[in-house]
């Protein structure tokens, strides 16, 4: 006669598991930090060197700000956004394609735990890369932090939104080609056309208005506000647009996780 093993206790459900998944996601990108941190920092520095060299003498922004100084916060925020997206999207698509996502699917983690862990780790990677870009580029031009709280708020919200968007892309894509399409035809154009390299005030009227439809523009403009104390639009407008965008994207990501979209058939 065997003795029965009882049902395990349910204490600490969800949150403990989310902490482990969060740590695992951090460890995952940190183990390949040359690729996930050092490489994007180098790319941003190259952008600064090339664009700064070509345009420094020809462009001045907000009346008195040097072009290279103007460019640095844009590059920092672009790096934050692109790397936050890359973290959750690449982790999910790799796990799906190699099949090791099964180890997570059989756990008691709730959809909220998945969201918090994946998006949290994406934010960490985005902010680490952004900080790396800032620490390296800040020596190339004078820079001040006039209203640093704005920079912090937009960096956090932007990283959170792109981490959530990466999660959606990772759930949706079934092959690396689809993921590359999402990244190259949506994320990269939206970040490049969001005023990283220019102030939208320098654009013709139509394109200036078109830029206002891009939520990435508000993230970068709001982030720059923290450095220069001036921006293309009011930081409160940017906060409203970015905040609502984040909530919508997060709600969609949570819904997809809850329904097991392309995870549980």
């Amino acid at each position, binding site marked *: 006669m*065997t*003795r*029965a093993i009882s049902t*395990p206790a349910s204490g600490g459900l969800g949150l403990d598991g989310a902490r*482990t998944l969060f740590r695992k996601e951090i460890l995952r990108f940190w183990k390949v930090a040359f690729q996930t941190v050092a490489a994007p920092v180098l790319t941003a520095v190259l952008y600064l060197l090339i664009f700064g060299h070509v345009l420094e003498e020809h462009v001045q922004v907000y009346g008195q700000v040097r072009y290279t100084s103007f460019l640095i916060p844009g590059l920092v925020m672009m790096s934050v956004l692109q790397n936050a997206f890359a973290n959750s999207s690449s982790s999910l698509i790799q796990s799906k394609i190699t099949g090791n996502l099964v180890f997570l*699917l059989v*756990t008691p983690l709730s959809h909220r735990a998945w969201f918090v862990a994946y998006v949290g780790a994406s934010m960490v990677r985005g902010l680490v890369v952004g900080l790396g870009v800032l620490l390296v580029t800040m020596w190339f031009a004078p820079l001040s932090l006039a209203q640093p709280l704005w920079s912090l708020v937009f960096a956090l919200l932007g990283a959170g939104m792109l981490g959530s968007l990466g999660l959606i892309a990772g759930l949706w894509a079934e092959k690396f080609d689809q993921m590359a399409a999402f990244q190259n035809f949506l994320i990269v154009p939206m970040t490049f056309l969001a005023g990283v390299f220019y102030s939208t005030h320098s654009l013709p009227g139509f394109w200036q208005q078109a830029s206002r439809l891009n939520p990435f523009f508000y993230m970068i403009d709001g982030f720059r506000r923290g450095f220069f104390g001036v921006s293309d639009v009011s930081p409160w407008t940017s906060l409203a647009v970015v905040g609502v965008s984040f909530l919508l994207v997060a709600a969609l990501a949570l819904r997809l996780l809850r329904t097991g979209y392309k995870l549980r*058939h």
Partner: protein
Amino acid sequence: MSSIPAVSFQNVSKIYSSARGEVRALQGVGFDIPQGEFFGLLGPNGAGKTTLISILAGLSRASGGQVRVHGHDVVSDYALARRCLGIVPQELVFDPFFSVRETLRIQSGYFGIHRNDAWIDELLHNLGLADKANANMRQLSGGMKRRVLVAQALVHRPPVIVLDEPTAGVDVELRQTLWQFIARLNKEGHTVLLTTHYLEEAEALCSRIGMLKQGRIVALDRTANLLAGTAHSMLRFKTDDPLPASVSARARVTGRIAQVSAHDAQDVERTLSALHAANVRVEDLEIGRADLEDVFLAIMQGGTPPAAPVEAGPVTALQSATRGARS
């Protein structure tokens, strides 16, 4: 022993939609596995074994019916149901970023269990992985990766262990190590649900067996009853000659080895006479009892299934119905 079944399948169905129409992977599957049982789920490829296990694990959703683990519904009460389950997947998958110990710590952490190194060390020792604890998963051989899959499934000490073809393509040493360890866990009270194509393993390990065919349960009984229920003897011999039609209809041929079922002594005599008459040269002739493989093939080929009484364990309405349908 608790009266709540370790696993309960109630009228489970699964329908996939494809371009060619609906595919019914499971149809009205229903049976219970009592706590502490070593249960074997057998069936040919595509019978629905992995689909049923996927539904149990929450990897797939049933189109109808209900699945419970220790009384917890796998959909509405998934967190507790999954805490009770340790699944060894069929595919050899791993996370290339981590070492064996990191992999096990992470898996343990997903279940909210930290500082679990004493149990992780015991798992590594029992599965012959102690010297690989700090090796990256990419550096391991296929057999070693399979052992890690087993350790991952057991790391949160689940009361129910599900092994989906765990010995497919692994060497004899691992099979023995694995089965010794799993048998020990079963003796300690863990329920084991095993799917395998190695029927001798199922015969040796499982106290009860269910057989799936085209998404339906076609046999469900204690292993001893399934074996006792077959009245067949088996003639086994080697030959290079073609078998006469009257024999080949009842024969299973693997290379030079032929196995022919026979109902009784007269049937054995008739078979030998037919072989003699056809000038078939026979070597290494043996006469033995049918094993689980013979029972399995008889059932899968739509032959007469065993009709022995159920010795113990729950008899579901479906079980009674399938018996009735077969008789």
